[in-house]
């Protein structure tokens, strides 16, 4: 005989759900004798206080055990994994103990075990009772046949009542899967809410995770910039220099070439040198090697020197800051100075880098036309994003007529 798959699945589900409910009853009721004993003794006289203390202590001791068993039951019977409120077993510390004993957390647990538990148990019991009654009713013919013949024949209404019992039983059995499933699901949800991590904690974990993954991403981007810089330095730049050197050699060693050929060579020589200069500017903007090697001060002096207007540079750093912040600071100043030379029509600029407490303050001021708009230009909004990536703040002040100030504050510690 083949059972239709849908029916088999539903039968399996009923078995699973009712098993889950049956296992829940004793667990949910486990604390009832404890507190009712405490309450009954307390209602009497004499050892009132002691009994209260004993029952409270017993409840507090049993609660974690029950929580663990409930978690196991949810996982083993329903396949529901309720996350632990503190997922990683952290180092022993007072903070960890405090979190473990925190009022809200303990309160939520006790609420689950003392108040909701008995209520859920009542629900579970009624579902199980319905199932049992349904089963008994559906098998009414079996019971009847098991009775001695005399009793059966003497039994009033045997032919009329038994089919009614059977029908009622089957009807009840039809309701069981639905109610058992609903109760099991509801219980899981309640357990998840009260035994799992709280919303605040879930959010905190999420924030930690996102912060971590963002840091990884920033580091990956920085590493990529370094790699590109290195590849260009070792490859294209050397090739171009070599080309320029060879063209220079040709010019120097062959003064006998016809005028036209010399002119072409000279032109090629010039263009090669210009290409080198352009590529240098581009590559240098990516990530200068000296930044890793000697830090912000050294890298910025090289940057300032290549700007075609006087730049006053003040770097006031006692010690180096973390590479990610150095990199962002360098990038901000590099881009800001590029903007100054491209758009500001300034005659001079001033760069200040200062560490104030846990913040690195970066400021680029020029005496140009002003009117720079942080929201319009892709350059400035890109800078704002880059600063935001390390939780920094970014500010542009550029009234029409100047001066323009680009300032960033970058937190140096995380």
């Amino acid at each position: 005989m083949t059972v239709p798959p849908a029916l088999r699945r539903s039968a399996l589900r009923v078995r699973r759900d009712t098993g889950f409910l049956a296992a829940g009853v004793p667990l949910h009721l486990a604390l009832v004798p404890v507190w009712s004993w405490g309450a009954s003794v307390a209602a009497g006289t004499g050892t009132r206080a002691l009994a209260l203390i004993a029952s409270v202590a017993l409840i507090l001791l049993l609660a974690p055990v029950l929580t663990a068993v409930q978690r196991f039951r949810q996982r083993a019977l329903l396949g529901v994994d309720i996350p632990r409120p503190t997922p990683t077993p952290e180092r022993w510390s007072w903070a960890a103990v405090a979190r473990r004993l925190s009022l809200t957390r303990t309160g939520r647990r006790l609420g689950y075990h003392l108040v909701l538990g008995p209520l859920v148990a009542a629900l579970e019991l009624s579902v199980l009772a319905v199932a049992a009654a349904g089963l008994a009713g559906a098998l009414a013919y079996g019971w009847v046949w098991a009775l001695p013949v005399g009793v059966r024949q003497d039994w009033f209404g045997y032919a009329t009542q038994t089919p009614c019992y059977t029908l009622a039983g089957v009807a009840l059995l039809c309701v069981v899967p639905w109610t058992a499933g609903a109760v099991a699901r509801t219980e899981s949800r309640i357990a998840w809410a009260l035994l799992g991590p709280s919303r605040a904690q879930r959010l905190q974990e999420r924030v930690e995770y996102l912060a971590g993954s963002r840091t990884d991403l920033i580091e990956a981007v920085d590493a990529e910039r370094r790699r590109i810089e290195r590849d260009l330095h070792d490859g294209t730049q050397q090739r171009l220099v070599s080309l320029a050197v060879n063209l220079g050699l040709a010019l120097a060693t062959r003064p006998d070439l016809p005028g036209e050929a010399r002119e072409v060579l000279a032109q090629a020589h010039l263009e090669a040198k210009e290409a080198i200069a352009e590529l240098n500017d581009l590559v240098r903007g990516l990530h200068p090697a000296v930044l890793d090697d000697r830090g912000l001060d050294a890298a910025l002096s090289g940057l300032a020197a290549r700007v075609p207007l006087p730049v006053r540079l003040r770097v006031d750093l006692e010690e180096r800051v973390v590479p990610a912040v150095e990199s962002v600071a360098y990038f901000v100043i590099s881009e800001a100075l590029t903007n100054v030379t491209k758009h500001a029509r300034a005659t001079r600029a001033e760069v200040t880098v200062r560490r104030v407490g846990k913040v690195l303050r970066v400021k680029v001021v020029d005496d140009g036309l002003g009117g720079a708009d942080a929201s319009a230009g892709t350059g400035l909004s890109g800078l704002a994003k880059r600063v935001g990536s390390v939780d920094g703040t970014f500010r542009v002040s550029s009234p029409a007529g100047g001066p323009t100030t680009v300032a960033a504050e970058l937190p140096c510690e995380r």
Partner: protein
Amino acid sequence: MRAVIAEDSVLLRVGLVKVLEMGGFQVAAEVGDGEALLAAVEEHRPELALVDVRMPPGFTDEGVRAAMVIRRRWPGTAVVLLSQYVEEQYAADLLATNTSSVGYLLKQRVADVGDFVEAVRRVADGGTALDPQVVAQLLLRRDSDPLDRLTRREREVLGLMAEGRSNAGIAEALTVSESAVAKHINNIFAKLDLPVIDTDHRRVLAVLRFLGASQA
């Protein structure tokens, strides 16, 4: 004159050998990293070492460090650093001990073969050759008190001195007479409180003072 070359790009090394040979140098060894450079200098005792700043294994300032070792151990070997970018900090490191027989030039300067050979010769003869970009970096530096006393023209002259030019060279670059240059230089010496010893030594001191001030 004998020279050794330390440059990790093989392509560029070939070019450098040709340029040096054109300038009358005899290339005793070509190597690709700092360690090998020190070994080559030890072996050949050349008059000149032409050194790339960024070399294996770290690709940061290996050349600068090797150059400083050479300056200390073999003072007879002049050192010219070559780099894709010139960094003031490296220049300051290199010049902190002694400003004679050192050069620090951008790689792209090699392409102007004549000027480059001249600069290298100057260094090999005990002079200095700083890339204009290094000098520019040094000149724009922050609160350099003694330098604030100099006039703009005097700063220009000092910059050209730091590049390693002679009075004639400075006069040519600024299109002024040589005697005007000499006058500026004397003013610089006076303003930087440099004692009257021999002029050449004072030139070096002025450049050193200049660097010292810019490092403050």
